[in-house]
C-alpha cells in the first residue's frame, strides 16, 4: 500500500505546481466573489430581514456563504476541471500510462479540489469575521473536517456528472438539474422552512444541505454530536457512491 501511495503523491504534486501558476485567479473567483455576495446579502438583505430562528440574518448567512464558496470551488473543478483534464487535454491517458491507477487519479483529484475549497472557505470566513458576522473565527478550524468531507463529496459528485459528458455544452444540463436547485434549496441564504414540505424532503438529497447544517451548527455552537456523526456519515456515503459510479463510467470509457 505504501508503495502504491507514491504515484498518488506525485499527482498531488502535479496539481500543486499547476496551482502555483493560477492561484491568483482562484482567489479572485472563489474568494472575492463570495465576499461580495456576503456583503450584499449580509448587509443588503440583512437590513430587510428579521431574525431567522432567533439568529440575526448576518450570523445566519455567513456560514451559508462559506459553504456556497466551498461548493462552487469544488463542484466547478470537479465538473469542468476533470472534463478539461480528461477530454480536452488527454492528461489522464498520459497519467494512466504510468503506474498510476484510475482510482488514484479520481481520489487524489477530489482530495486536492476539496483542500483548495477549504482554503477558499477559510478566506471567506475571515471576510465574514471582519464584517462582524462570526463570533469566534477559531470555530472555523473546528468546522474544517466538515468542509473537507463536504468538499470531497461535492467534487466526487462533479466527477460523476462529468464522467458522462463529452463537451462543456453537455454540462449545461447539470445546471438546472443539480447545481441551481442545490444552491437554492440547501438553506444557504433562504431558510429551508420557507418552502413546502415536499421540497424540504427533497433537500435531504442535496449533499450541500448536510454540509450547511454541519458548518452552521459549528459556527453558531448549536451542533450536537449525534447530528454531526449522522450527517458526516451521510456525506461520506454520497461521496463513496459518486466515486464508485464515476470510476465505473470512466473505466468503461477509457479502457474499452
Amino acid at each position, binding site marked *: 500500500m505504501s508503495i502504491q501511495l507514491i504515484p498518488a503523491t506525485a499527482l498531488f504534486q502535479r496539481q500543486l505546481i499547476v496551482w502555483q501558476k493560477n492561484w491568483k485567479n482562484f482567489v479572485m473567483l472563489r474568494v472575492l466573489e463570495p465576499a461580495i455576495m456576503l456583503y450584499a446579502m449580509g448587509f443588503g438583505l440583512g437590513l430587510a*430581514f428579521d431574525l431567522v430562528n432567533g439568529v440575526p440574518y448576518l450570523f445566519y448567512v455567513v456560514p451559508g456563504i462559506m459553504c456556497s464558496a466551498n461548493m462552487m470551488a469544488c463542484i466547478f473543478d470537479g465538473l469542468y476541471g476533470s472534463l478539461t483534464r480528461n477530454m480536452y487535454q488527454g492528461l489522464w491517458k498520459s497519467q494512466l500510462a504510468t503506474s498510476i491507477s484510475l482510482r488514484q487519479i479520481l481520489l487524489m483529484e477530489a482530495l486536492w479540489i476539496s483542500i483548495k475549497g477549504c482554503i477558499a472557505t477559510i478566506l471567506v470566513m475571515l471576510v465574514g469575521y471582519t464584517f462582524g458576522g462570526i463570533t469566534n473565527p477559531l470555530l472555523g478550524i473546528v468546522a474544517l473536517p466538515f468542509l473537507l468531507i463536504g468538499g470531497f463529496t461535492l467534487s466526487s459528485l462533479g466527477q460523476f456528472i462529468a464522467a458522462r459528458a463529452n463537451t462543456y455544452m453537455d454540462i449545461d444540463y447539470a445546471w438546472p438539474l443539480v447545481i441551481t436547485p442545490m444552491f437554492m434549496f440547501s438553506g444557504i441564504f433562504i431558510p429551508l422552512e420557507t418552502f413546502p414540505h415536499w421540497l424540504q424532503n427533497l433537500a435531504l438529497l442535496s449533499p450541500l444541505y448536510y454540509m450547511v447544517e454541519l458548518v452552521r451548527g459549528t459556527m453558531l455552537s448549536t451542533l450536537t454530536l449525534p447530528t454531526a456523526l449522522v450527517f458526516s456519515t451521510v456525506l461520506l456515503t454520497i461521496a463513496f457512491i459518486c466515486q464508485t459510479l464515476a470510476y465505473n463510467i470512466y473505466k468503461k470509457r477509457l479502457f474499452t
Partner: protein
Amino acid sequence: MYTGAGTILQRQFLAWKPYIPNFIFLFVLDPFIYLYAIAFGLGAYLADNPAEYSFFAASGLVAGTLIWVVTTDATYLTLTRLNTGLWQSQLSASIKLPAILMGESLFGAIKGTLAALIVLGISLLLGALNLHIHLWLLVPILFIGALTLYTTGQFFTAHIGSEQGFDFLWPLLYNPMFLFCGVFIPIDIFPSWLQIISWILPLSHIVELTRAVCAQQLSSHLFVHIYALAGYIILFHFCSCHLYKKRILA
C-alpha cells in the same frame, strides 16, 4: 462599413442551431428554480409585503437573466472566435471589423432578449407579474439592454489575452452588477458611494426600465435610462472597433 453584418448574424444563428435544445433546457428550467426560490422563498421572509417583493424580484430577474445569456457569449465565445482565427477569415472575405462586431452583438442581443422573455413568461405563470398591454414595450427595452451588455462584454474582452483573464471579470464586474443593480436587492439599501457605482453599471438602467414597464409606471423620465444605454452602446462599440483593430493588426 457595416455591409456583411447580416451575413455574420446568419452565421451566428447557424452556429447556434445545434445548441437550441441546451438553450431551452437551461433557460426554461433554471429561471423557474431561481424565480421560485428568490421571488417566493426569500419574499416570504421579508417582513412587510411578500407579494410586493415577489413582483420586485421577478421584474429584476427578467432583466438580470440577460447577464448570464449575453456575457458568456460576449466574453468566452468572442475570445474563442478571435483566437481560432475565425475573424481573420471573415476579414479576408471583405467583411469589415465593425460589421463583424455589430453582427455578432445583434445576434447575441436577440438571443438574450429571447431568454429574458422566457423568464418573463415564467414569472407570469407563477403569478409574480401581471399580464397587461404595455408588456410588449419590454421587447425593445430588453433588446437594447442586451445589446448594451454585449458591447460592454466585447469591450472588456478586447483587453483579455486568455480565458483565465475572465476570472477577474466575474468578481469585479458581473457579480457586482447582479448584486448591486437592484435585481433582487433594492439599490437604496446600500451606502451612497455604492449607489453611485450601481448607477454607473449598465444593468441598473435595464432593471429600472423593466420594472417601470412591469408596474405600468411609464413616464418621460425613463428616457434618461434609454439615453444612458444608447450612450454605452455607441461608446463601447467604437472603442471595441479601435481596440480589436489594433490587436488584430499587431
